[in-house]
Every structure is written in structure tokens, then in C-alpha cells.
């Protein structure tokens, strides 16, 4: 990775560091106060962050997604809605990781309405996050916001399904021949590189495919299965 690329990737960090340098020169006492303010948040996060990541990963791996996915079609009704909420609430990864997965679900027959539910619940009602919300804003606040959000999602997913038809979604993008890795979906968890280090490597924050390796199908299938956001696909 070139230095320029590295700088660009960490642009925000550099701006923050520069701001602190300016602050410490101009108003040292405010610089100290800023560090103290930040320390409070870092302390709070260190207590909760590891456990949120572990819980998210456990939920993601233990929920039988394949069984759930079968019930997301138009005829699934209430069951489909409930399963969509569950799927969104327990999945790992940022919301952009949900986009390719939802496209895949749509191709497999999931309705527009259920896709909106999955995307929205993926974004706002993650279970570990609810506990975090209760911690800082109180259980009553969390519970009310959760109920209202679920109701809102039920209503606007219905509106979306009335306004957007299946044909409004882009046609299948031509499938790339061979092995491909969707870098927009990758969240850099590095599981594929650990599963199959001969074929996958980390390039910056995302995984990439090493060129010139002839993949071993069994090992490759395992890596494809492992990827929590289904970013790896193959057409051999």
C-alpha cells in the first residue's frame, strides 16, 4: 500500500492529531481537558466493546441463518416479518455489509418489505447495542425507543413495498467469472485469511485474493461459508 493511500485512509485521524497539537500550543489547559474528556469515553468503551464484539460474533454464528432465510418470501406473512427482524438483530457487521447479503436474499425470493426490515433492524436494533443503550440512557428509554422503532419499521417497510417494485431493483450484475471478493461488503474481520491463508490476504482494512494461486475447492468452499457477510463468490 502506498503512503498516499495510507494517509488518505487515516485522514480523519491525522486531522484529529493536528487539532490536538494546535490546541496544546494555543490553550494547553484545554488540551488537557480534551484528553480527560476522551479518557472517560475510552474507559467506558474498553469495558463494553470487547464483549459487544464477542456477543455479536457468537449470535451471528449460532443462529441457523439457512433455516431462517427460507421464510422471507412474499407469502411468508407475519412469520417472514418476525424472521426478518430476528435476522437483522443478530447479524454481525456494519450496515453496508448487509447490502450485498440482502441482494442475495432478494434473488432467492425474499420480498422487498422483508429486505427493508432486515436492513433497518440491522442498523438500529442490534441486541448487544440495546444493552449498551440501556446502560447509558436507562432501560425505560431503550425499551420505548425499541418498541417505537419496531412499529415504525413495520409501517415504512409496508409503504416501501407499495412504492418500490421488484423490477425497480437493478438487474443481475453480470457474474464475474472465477473467484471474486466484494470489497464493498468486506468488513475486514480477517476470517478468510485465517481459514485459507494461501489464497486470501489482508490489504489494508479489507481482504483480497492472492493472484496466481489455484484454489483448492474444498478449502475455498469453507472460506466462502465462513465469511460472515458473504463477500466471497465463485463461478468456477
Amino acid at each position, binding site marked *: 500500500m502506498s503512503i498516499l493511500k495510507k494517509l488518505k485512509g487515516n485522514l*480523519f485521524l491525522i486531522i484529529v492529531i493536528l487539532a490536538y497539537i494546535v490546541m496544546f500550543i494555543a490553550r494547553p489547559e484545554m488540551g488537557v481537558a480534551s484528553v480527560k474528556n476522551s479518557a472517560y469515553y475510552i474507559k467506558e468503551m474498553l469495558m463494553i466493546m470487547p464483549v459487544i464484539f464477542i456477543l455479536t*460474533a457468537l449470535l451471528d454464528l449460532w443462529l441457523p441463518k439457512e433455516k431462517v432465510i427460507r421464510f422471507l418470501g412474499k407469502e411468508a406473512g407475519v412469520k417472514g416479518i418476525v424472521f426478518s427482524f430476528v435476522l437483522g438483530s443478530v447479524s454481525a457487521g456494519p450496515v453496508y455489509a448487509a447490502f450485498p447479503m*440482502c441482494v442475495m436474499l432478494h434473488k432467492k425470493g425474499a420480498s422487498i418489505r422483508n429486505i427493508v426490515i432486515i436492513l433497518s433492524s440491522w442498523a438500529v436494533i442490534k441486541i448487544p447495542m440495546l444493552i449498551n443503550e440501556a*446502560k447509558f440512557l436507562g432501560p425505560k428509554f431503550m425499551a420505548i425507543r425499541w418498541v417505537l422503532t419496531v412499529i415504525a419499521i413495520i409501517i415504512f417497510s409496508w409503504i416501501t413495498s407499495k412504492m418500490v417494485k421488484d423490477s425497480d431493483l*437493478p438487474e443481475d450484475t453480470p457474474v464475474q467469472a472465477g473467484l471474486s471478493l466484494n470489497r464493498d461488503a468486506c468488513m475486514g474481520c480477517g476470517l478468510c485469511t485465517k481459514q485459507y491463508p494461501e489464497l486470501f490476504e489482508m490489504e489494508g482494512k479489507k481482504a483480497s485474493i492472492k493472484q496466481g494461486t489455484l484454489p483448492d475447492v474444498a478449502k475455498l468452499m469453507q472460506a466462502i461459508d465462513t465469511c460472515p457477510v458473504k463477500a466471497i463468490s465463485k463461478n468456477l
Partner: protein
Amino acid sequence: MDVFTIAIWVGTLIFLFISLVKDKEKTKKALKMALGMGRGMVVSILSIVFAIGLILTILPPEEIARFVSEQSVLLATVVAALFGTITLVPAFIAFPLVGTLVGAGVSVVPAVAFLTTLTMVGVVTFPLEKKEFGVKFTVVRNGLSFVFAIVIALVMGVVI
């Protein structure tokens, strides 16, 4: 440590233990995944936290609370919702931040609007979403999410 932190740790450790007994490989995979996700986010999280520390020194929460209380609730809520759509702060930093602001006296209505649009509406992720789902779907979903975020916030203001 407060009761919620303890509860989530105990719950997760029990889950982890059961998982380990049932399937050692799967558990190892989960831990690797957690580590990978954490490592991928650590730099951006630290920069955001230090940025928040700096901003709260220049603009103390009490000042923000006073400023917000001088505005009409609806205006404050819409501005907070707009602010939520353009910022990219992970939710687990947003909760303590909003906690600080509400503790300093900021009304819950704009706070809720900010929290909801922060995660549900994405200007930054808009191009990605458009590429996968098309313009119409993306505009409708984000637009409705924005409107409903404000509705949720206003209803919360009445209920709480």
C-alpha cells in the same frame, strides 16, 4: 461497574462457555471474528473518541444544552436528525455521548432523532446502497427512515 455492563459480560461468558462445550471450532471462529472486527475498527474509533473529547471541551455539554433549549423543539429535532444522517459514529460511542448530552439537559426529542438517523439513514453509505438496490429503493428507504426517525423522536418526547 454498573448492572448492565455486568449483565452483558456474564451473559456473554455463559454463552461463550456453552458454545465452547458444544462446538470448539465454531467458538474459535467466533472469537477470531470478534478480534478481527475489533482490530479493523480500533483506529477509527479512537480518532472519533478523541475528536469528541476535543469538541466537548470547546463546546461544553451545558452550552450545547442551553443552545438547544433556546430553539423550537421541531427545529432542534430536524437539525439533530440531519446531523445524524451525515455523521458516521459507531452506535456504541453514540450512546455514552448522547447520555452525556441528555445528562447535561439536552431534551430527549432531538437526542432520539439523532440516535435513530445516525444508524438508519446513511448519506455516506448512499452510493453503496444505490449500487446494490437502485436509486428508487435507496431514496424511498432513506427518506422514510428519516421521516419516521422524527416521528419516533416526537412520540418519545410525549411518552417519556
